């Protein structure tokens, strides 16, 4: 197996997610907090940071350079990425090449958002020009209705019931109970899941991510000790929005990803898939080869319900919260914590390999972006 990069991830941190952030919180302030925390976690001095990558929906009109200025950085490498659920892996895809090429030696990647009510309305109706022109006037009310239709189609195809999806929500909440910074930590039962108010049939409240304020940060260096990158692949707009939306670009890159990694799906000790909705988490698991017989109901009962798979061990976005663009990094932060043995009560024993996916950017009917990374902990 040839190494895809010499770059390593040396640490990760989160600015705590919050449903009700204190007065004065801004997108810039949560990104800055994540930056400070990741330096504290890694012992890296601000002066050593010569690269900065930023992913955010609500930092506008500011960009990465504004944040660099306000953090007192003089970066040799600077990058903005607005691609939501794939932004974390996307930034790593660029950062690792920059580190290999010598453009920078120490790169901090931050992602996150703080939404005011106006920010959120603007994001829902103006997510992209297609949304503003063709969907907002329905009014579609954001992505829930689109993913309700996809979920119903997946239910029909795989013979699933609402309770099947509930097993994923219940399992992730169990993990969240072990994560001190998850916004929802109280255990839930299948009955709780089914009793939650319906948002758009068949989606209930526990199928939808809680929007929070917060930010994530990662530090990458050109070499040395840390979490290694065994494989990284991406494929965006793979079907031109002409498919059924239940198959993602991961279906096309999974084989190459695992070949690059020199390890298969069942060798991953920790898995984080992008969980904007349970149906899409399941679609990705199918695409990655975790359900070879296509029997999702059995997979949910035997692998998820019984806790045999370490999936979304932070609680995922469904329980830990979706801090806007940080949703594209939450799985990376968790995987790095697990591989460095820093995951506290939820530490997966002997976690050596982790798989993380990114998915999202609804172009019209469903997400158009997908990427994935395989990480290896220090030996």
């Amino acid at each position, binding site marked *: 197996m040839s190494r895809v990069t010499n770059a390593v991830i040396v640490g990760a941190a989160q600015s705590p997610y919050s449903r009700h952030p204190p007065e004065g919180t801004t997108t810039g302030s949560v990104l800055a907090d994540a930056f400070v925390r990741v330096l504290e976690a890694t012992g890296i001095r601000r002066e050593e940071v010569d690269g900065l990558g930023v992913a955010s929906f609500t930092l506008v009109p500011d960009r990465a350079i504004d944040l660099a200025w306000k953090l007192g950085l003089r970066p040799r490498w600077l990058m903005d990425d607005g691609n939501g659920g794939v932004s974390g892996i996307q930034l790593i895809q660029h950062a690792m090449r920059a580190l290999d090429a010598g453009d920078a030696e120490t790169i901090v990647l931050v992602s996150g958002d703080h939404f005011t009510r106006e920010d959120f309305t603007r994001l829902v109706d103006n997510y992209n020009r*297609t949304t503003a*022109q*063709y*969907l907002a*006037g*329905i*009014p*579609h*009310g954001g992505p*829930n*209705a*689109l993913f*309700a*239709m996809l979920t*119903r*189609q997946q239910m029909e195809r795989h013979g699933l019931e609402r309770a099947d999806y509930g097993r994923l929500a219940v399992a992730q909440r169990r993990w969240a109970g072990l994560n001190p910074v998850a916004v929802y930590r109280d255990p839930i039962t299948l009955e709780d899941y089914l009793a939650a108010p319906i948002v*758009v*049939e068949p989606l209930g409240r526990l199928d939808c991510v809680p929007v929070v304020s917060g930010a994530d940060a990662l530090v990458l260096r050109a070499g040395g000790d840390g979490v290694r990158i065994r494989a990284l692949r991406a494929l965006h707009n793979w079907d*031109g929005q*002409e498919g059924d939306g239940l198959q993602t670009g991961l279906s096309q890159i999974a084989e190459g990803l695992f070949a690059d990694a020199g390890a298969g799906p069942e060798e991953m000790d920790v898995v984080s898939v992008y969980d904007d909705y349970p149906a899409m988490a399941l679609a990705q698991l199918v695409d990655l080869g975790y359900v070879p017989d296509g029997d999702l109901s059995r997979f949910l009962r035997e692998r998820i319900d019984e806790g045999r798979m370490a999936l979304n061990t932070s609680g995922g976005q469904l329980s830990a919260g979706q801090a806007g663009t940080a949703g594209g990094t939450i799985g990376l932060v968790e995987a790095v914590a697990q591989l460095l043995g820093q995951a506290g009560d939820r530490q997966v024993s002997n976690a050596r390999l982790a798989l993380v996916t990114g998915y999202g950017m609804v172009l*019209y*009917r469903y997400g158009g972006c997908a990427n994935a990374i395989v990480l290896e902990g220090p030996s």
Partner: protein
Amino acid sequence: MSLRVAVCGSCGKASFPPPFLCPACGAREWREEEAASGTLEAVADRGEVRLGAVRLPQGPLAIARVEGDAEAGAEVSLSEDGDVPVARA
């Protein structure tokens, strides 16, 4: 009363919403066709409004406001409210 659909002037592939370049052949000349009706493939009920995915005769799937009580599988007539597709049983 119909929905405008972009059809590639070179290869005839239909797209909705209209792209810049034809996804199939890369051409950038378009002609407009009308879709008077389609088949409702999925419905989402938001309470205040219902959304549906409508299969157009030309091939693409459009997201529409569904007026009336049409369910998945129904033939619907199509119109536009501004640029927004509207489907009626």
